[in-house]
């Protein structure tokens, strides 16, 4: 059956014209963003696109994701079917039947199969939303059962039904080539058996028009809904950040400029494309420690607010007007609350799960920068902390002279240029926190026992600046980083052992932006090497700590992929592998201290550290093992709160040091 090609041609041109117009409107809005190089290296990018977009690596990681994978692939195949359908509507002669018979028959079979799959998948998706929607599908701005979601699913279902109806009718009218290869349409044809030819003919026409109109309306809805991701997800995977977004880009401090992101066009164009790519799947919300514990932060809401803000302000910004809707601070759709921005622990869990590789956390930091650097708006407890970092290079404001107090019981050498091999970078917690000082001593004891050549910077050691950077105080971080990098260079330091994952990540990743290329090892990694190479021999197997569970610190694990070293160390020291949290390794749940949250009050919702401690208690451990000073504090506090102080908290190094004791 063919409609009037001229009439349909006009409809087609109009539909595509409108589609192109709304695409242009949206994408040209993203062009108000700042430049960002996201095009090289091509090879890696194509691979990412294959892995995440076409193979749907992350989508498929969740059981229900398979349903989406099915729809996605059905969609790709049906692009051919629908393309042919539209072309044939205007040029009836142009069709797949021009291809050799075996080819078009195979295609017809493929269309049948995937259409059926798509139909079933859409029905399942609808049922899921209706009857067993997981909580993370809903947020303040969208419900799992939103009209939009159902409309799109409904359209897909209608399209599939119309497809089968049309081809069933064609078969019934004996006009369909390759009918043997069309089992589903064949069934429809049989159902039409009792209807007269005229009735079948009008049914075919009806199906044709329904298919055509729904298809074109569907296409036009894409750029206007969350289904925009159908257009942007694939490019978004191509454009992903090649480095892990575990650090933030530097800012150049030139006079007359604005710092951080305070209005939507200060984001990069990629940030804005991100906002168009969100599928509203809710995965980030489902893993975010802030969202889970009832804080005002929900990473997908951040992305959504950026999109709404861009839609509200974009046209004006293009004309050079001031934005009417503020990006931060107002209580309206399309703005982020300050409280939300301050709730992030920078744990990176959102980055780890987003199926379309949206970078949520870096955007939060960009907005924090604006609040700190331009507005001086931050939780009041941070004022003293900022002054302490800047004035005394540690968060507590303790006199720098006290940095060496931890080693009163040991003979600690200072790093000597040219003779000492490793710098032991103790870090603020290791130097000042009374509990953590014990870990410092344990590490030092291990290094000595293994005959490592090491030294510290003594009183000259400065804070690495991690908290400042994550809190958005980039200006002061920048000063500190430059001083530290200079100090490291002057001292000829090439190898560093850090006690804290935050120092580790900062020295390793952030300082690279300042041209510092040194080998950085977390103490867990070095101890693993020492044990493996036999340089470190334990005197006994550590059994008195009972059942040990290991907590992955975000800055070691997710941000730097160090998962095995601490586990191997524990296994060697205790003779058995540590027990795992139900959320472990890349899925680990933050202790709540990262991103400078360590220095802030946590007054809203439940406490992140308590949530994690409760998760630990489910495995009934005797000891929680950590590799991070903040994690240690957070666990100890949580066990105190829970009245479970009998559960010990130990650093990996302390367990190993136990093994060095005689007898």
């Amino acid at each position: 059956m063919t409609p009037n090609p001229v009439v349909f041609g006009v409809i087609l041109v109009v539909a595509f014209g409108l589609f192109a117009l709304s695409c242009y409107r949206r994408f040209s809005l993203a062009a108000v963003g700042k430049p960002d190089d996201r095009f090289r290296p091509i090879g890696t990018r194509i691979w990412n696109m294959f892995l995440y977009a076409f193979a749907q690596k992350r989508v498929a990681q969740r059981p229900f994701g398979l349903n989406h994978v099915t729809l996605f692939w059905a969609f790709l195949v049906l692009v051919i079917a629908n393309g042919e359908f539209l072309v044939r509507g205007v040029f009836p002669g142009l069709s797949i039947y021009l291809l050799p018979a075996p080819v078009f028959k195979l295609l017809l079979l493929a269309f049948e199969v995937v259409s059926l799959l798509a139909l079933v998948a859409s029905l399942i998706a609808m049922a899921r939303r209706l009857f067993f929607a997981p909580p993370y599908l809903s947020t303040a701005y969208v419900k799992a059962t939103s009209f939009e979601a159902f409309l799109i699913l409904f359209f897909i279902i209608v399209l599939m039904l119309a497809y089968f109806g049309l081809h069933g009718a064609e078969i019934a009218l004996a006009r369909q080539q390759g009918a043997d290869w069309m089992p589903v349409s064949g069934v429809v044809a049989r159902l039409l058996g009792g209807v007269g030819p005229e009735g079948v003919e009008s049914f075919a026409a009806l199906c044709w028009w329904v298919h055509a109109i729904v298809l074109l309306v569907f296409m036009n809805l894409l750029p206007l809904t969350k289904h925009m991701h159908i257009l942007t997800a694939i490019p978004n995977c191509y454009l992903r950040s090649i480095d892990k977004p575990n650090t933030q880009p530097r800012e150049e401090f030139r006079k007359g400029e604005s710092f951080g992101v305070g209005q939507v066009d200060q984001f990069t164009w990629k940030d804005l494309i991100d906002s168009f790519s969100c599928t509203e799947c809710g995965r980030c919300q489902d893993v975010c420690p802030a969202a889970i514990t009832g804080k005002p932060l929900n990473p997908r809401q951040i992305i959504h607010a950026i999109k709404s803000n861009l839609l509200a302000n974009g046209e004006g910004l293009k004309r050079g007007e001031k934005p009417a809707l503020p990006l931060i601070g107002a209580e309206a759709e399309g703005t982020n609350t300050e409280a939300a921005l301050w709730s992030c622990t920078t744990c990176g869990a959102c980055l780890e799960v987003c199926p379309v590789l949206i970078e949520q956390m870096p955007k939060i930091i960009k907005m924090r920068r604006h609040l700190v650097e331009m507005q001086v708006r931050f939780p009041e407890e941070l004022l003293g902390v900022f002054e302490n970092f800047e004035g005394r290079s540690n968060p507590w404001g303790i006199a720098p002279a006290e940095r060496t107090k931890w080693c009163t019981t040991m003979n600690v050498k200072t790093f000597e240029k040219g003779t000492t091999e490793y710098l032991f970078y103790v870090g603020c917690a290791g130097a000042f926190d009374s509990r953590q000082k014990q870990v410092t001593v344990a590490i030092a004891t291990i290094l000595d026992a293994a005959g490592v050549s090491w030294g510290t910077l003594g009183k000259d050691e400065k804070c690495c600046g991690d908290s400042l950077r994550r809190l958005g105080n980039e200006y002061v971080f920048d000063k500190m980083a430059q001083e530290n990098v200079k100090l490291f260079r002057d001292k000829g330091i090439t190898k560093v052992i850090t006690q804290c994952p935050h120092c580790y990540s900062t020295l390793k990743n952030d300082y690279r932006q300042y041209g510092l290329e040194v080998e950085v090892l977390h103490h867990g990694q070095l101890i693993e090497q020492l044990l493996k190479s036999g340089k470190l021999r334990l005197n006994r197997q550590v059994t008195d700590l009972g059942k040990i569970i290991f907590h992955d610190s975000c800055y070691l694990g997710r941000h730097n992929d160090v998962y095995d070293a601490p586990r191997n160390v524990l296994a060697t020291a205790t003779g058995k592998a540590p027990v795992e949290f139900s959320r472990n390794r890349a899925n680990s749940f933050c202790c709540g201290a990262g991103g400078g949250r360590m220095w802030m009050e946590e007054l809203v919702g439940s406490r992140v550290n308590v949530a994690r401690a409760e998760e630990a208690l489910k495995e009934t451990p005797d000891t929680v093992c950590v590799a991070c000073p903040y994690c240690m504090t957070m666990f100890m506090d949580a066990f105190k709160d829970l009245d479970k102080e009998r559960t010990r908290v130990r650093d990996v190094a302390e367990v190993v040091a136990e093994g060095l004791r005689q007898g």
Partner: protein
Amino acid sequence: MLVVACIKQVPDTTQVKIDPVTNTLVREGVPFIINPFDIHALEEALRIRDRFGCRVTAISMGPPNAEATLRKALSLGVDEAILVSDRCFGGADTLATSNVLAEAIRRLVKREDVGLVICGKQTIDGDTAQVGPGIATRLGFAQLTLVDRIEHFDPEKRVIRVRRKLEGRHEIVEAPLPALITVVRELNRPRYPTVPMRLQALETQITVWRNQNLELDENTIGLKGSPTCVNRIFSPQREKGEILGDGGKDPDGAARLLVEKLRSKDLLVV
């Protein structure tokens, strides 16, 4: 109207040690900071500016490197920074210092209407609390010390009423302008600089006044103008501490003992 904030760069005294042999301050490697009380003086000056639209000048006497302190003041938003610096001002005690600062402020008075001078209640290196009152005396300004709240300020009617924080009580006093106040930390919460202000402060010219500009008699300034002489500096012997109760076994009992002890020494009043 101009509000003048007097600030001083001091060694971070929590980091200063006294050399047990020579009994002198070991200043080597000790960072300099802005005197903590002066930050509050500066903040109050800025708040008055924000409310009444006057101008703020920060003034500091010290060696050339005291410039850093004035840069900080600039980054917080003062309109003008003056460094009073000359070799012949060196070694000054509180008398000579107030002579110099009073003269510097007098120059400002000649230039415009100075309504208020604000100083920290004392510096953490000298701890004398004399310079503020000394300046007021030499300028003939009313002096209101230990201010923890400004109750009323009226640049039109030229009057200021403040609350003074004294031991165990408060006192509310009023004075006509021009006046000098010295402030305690409870007065306000200092602000934090924005980055554009910091960048601006790096480029702003700091005015330097030498004795050439102030034309003070050499006998009233520096070491010569300082009647104070320091005989000896030493760290006091610390009384040995005492362990009360057993916090590990009986925390409640230990806490009770501690409270009693603090009460008996009048350190806790309940």
